[in-house]
């Protein structure tokens, strides 16, 4: 994630900055005009002190809005205007120096007021600028904190994902060690049993019962070998032989392998296959194994017949990180999967089938094969009954977990 860009400090647009001196000139001119108006009023009312205080209005306004210099100028102009009004009024003057002193005093007071107002305005402007800067800084800090929090959340999610992968890898390693150990310890005695059975099968059996018994023993050895082989393949799957494949064609081929069983159990197959699927990098044999496994589960869930639906589709954002993916759904019209079983269906050796009929490795292997293809599988129930397996094949597969 990128670092957040610093929030800009609010500034006046250039055009406004260029017109500021003109604004000051305009205000000064308006204030001088006001001074003239006050002087006229002053003259007409006989130069009264209370009217003279009106000069403070343009002085204050100008120094506040146009700065100290303009304020002092208007203050001087006000003193001058007051003097002119007094002279025009023609009232008797005790001594010319009194008039000079009064003018200077009034001018001094006006200048002092102008300076005070300008200083006050300057202080306020500084304070305002500080507030703006501080607000911007706070904004940046808040944005940085939000960014850091988002980073933290992302890191936490990644950590959880890695942890899950590590747990998964540790589980696989344990299963692998177990499988290799069990394979060695069980397959050697199975070899002795198998060879012994073969020996007696070669010699003509004395009765058909004996022959059946020997064949049953041979089948039992094969079944036990099959389970150990499943464990070995699950724990250390051989490398994938990837080639561009058409998933629809693999689904058809897997359905073909179960044709007889589908006919026998009166199961109708609904094919909703998207003809425009892109080709995917797949190990055909292993994906066919996955599909045969899922179709067999579906068939077993419908002993009295039903509908097996196979649906494929290309979706733009169905894959990991919303990447494009190909989806394949396998649905049956059986009773569905009890909710309490759903979280465990992909665990190795978890089975709900009667003893001897399920190893509990079928779906675990399916899950594993999808995983090493960089895809995924989800199992759930349809709202209108029956189970649904959803296989997702990323168009650009991620590297598989260790």
């Amino acid at each position, binding site marked *: 994630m990128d670092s957040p860009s610093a929030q800009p400090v609010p500034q006046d647009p250039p055009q406004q900055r260029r017109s500021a001196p003109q604004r000051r000139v305009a205000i000064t001119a308006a204030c001088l005009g006001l001074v003239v108006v006050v002087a006229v009023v002053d003259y007409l009312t006989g130069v009264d002190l209370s009217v003279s205080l009106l000069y403070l209005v343009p002085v204050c306004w100008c120094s506040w809005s146009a700065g100290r210099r303009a304020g002092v100028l208007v203050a001087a102009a006000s003193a001058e205007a007051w003097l002119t009004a007094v002279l025009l009024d023609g009232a008797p003057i005790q001594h010319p120096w009194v008039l000079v002193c009064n003018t200077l005093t009034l001018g001094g007071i006006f200048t002092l007021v102008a300076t005070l107002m300008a200083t006050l305005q300057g202080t306020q402007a500084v304070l305002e600028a500080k507030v703006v800067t501080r607000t911007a800084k706070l904004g940046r800090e808040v944005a940085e904190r939000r960014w850091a929090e988002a980073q933290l959340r992302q890191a936490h999610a990644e950590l959880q994902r890695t942890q899950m992968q590590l747990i998964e890898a540790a589980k696989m390693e344990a299963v692998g060690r177990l499988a*290799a150990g069990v*394979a*060695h310890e069980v*397959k*050697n*005695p*199975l*070899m*002795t*049993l*198998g*060879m*012994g059975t*073969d*020996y007696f099968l*070669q*010699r003509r059996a004395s009765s058909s019962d004996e022959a059946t018994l020997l064949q049953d023993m041979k089948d039992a*050895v094969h079944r036990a*070998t099959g389970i*150990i*082989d*499943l464990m*070995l*393949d699950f724990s250390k799957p*051989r490398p994938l032989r990837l080639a561009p494949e058409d998933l629809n064609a693999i689904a058809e081929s897997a359905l073909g392998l179960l044709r007889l069983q589908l006919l026998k159990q009166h199961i109708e197959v609904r094919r909703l296959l998207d003809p425009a699927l892109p080709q995917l990098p797949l190990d055909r044999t292993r994906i066919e194994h996955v599909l045969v496994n899922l179709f067999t589960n579906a068939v077993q869930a419908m002993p009295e017949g039903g509908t097996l639906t196979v649906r494929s589709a290309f979706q733009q954002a169905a894959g990991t990180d919303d990447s494009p993916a190909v989806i394949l759904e396998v649905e049956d019209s059986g009773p569905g999967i009890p909710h309490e079983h759903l979280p465990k269906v992909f665990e190795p050796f978890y089975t709900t089938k009667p003893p001897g009929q399920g190893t509990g490795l079928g779906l675990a292997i399916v899950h594993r094969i999808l995983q090493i293809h960089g895809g995924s599988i989800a199992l759930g129930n349809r709202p209108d009954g029956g189970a649904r397996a959803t296989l997702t094949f990323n168009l650009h597969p991620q590297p598989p977990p260790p």
Partner: protein
Amino acid sequence: MKRILIIDDEASITRSVKLNLEALGAYEVYQENDPRTAVHTAREVRPDLILLDVMMPDLDGGEVAAELQKTPGLQHVPIIFLTAIVSNEETQGREASIGGHDFLAKPVDLDVLVNTIESHLED
């Protein structure tokens, strides 16, 4: 009659393979259960083919095969490895092999074993 030597640390396996192959009437089968004396036995027996277990104590199948190949007169004797820690799927259609030799996953069916032996003896 072709001579076959089977080397496996489990006596029950060597015994059952010997009984089966000899019952066919085409082979003379010798058994060895100690990998440390396997090369010595092979020198004495001069077999046409050796069946060799992979996982054995003290000396594994690979080491025994290496010793056999250094022994004059035994360099060209075909070896078929028998291993318990691979699945059947891994042995089928597999281009790779152990040191250029075939290998079969235990438990081996008698007909598969005989077919493999015959294919080597014909060569």
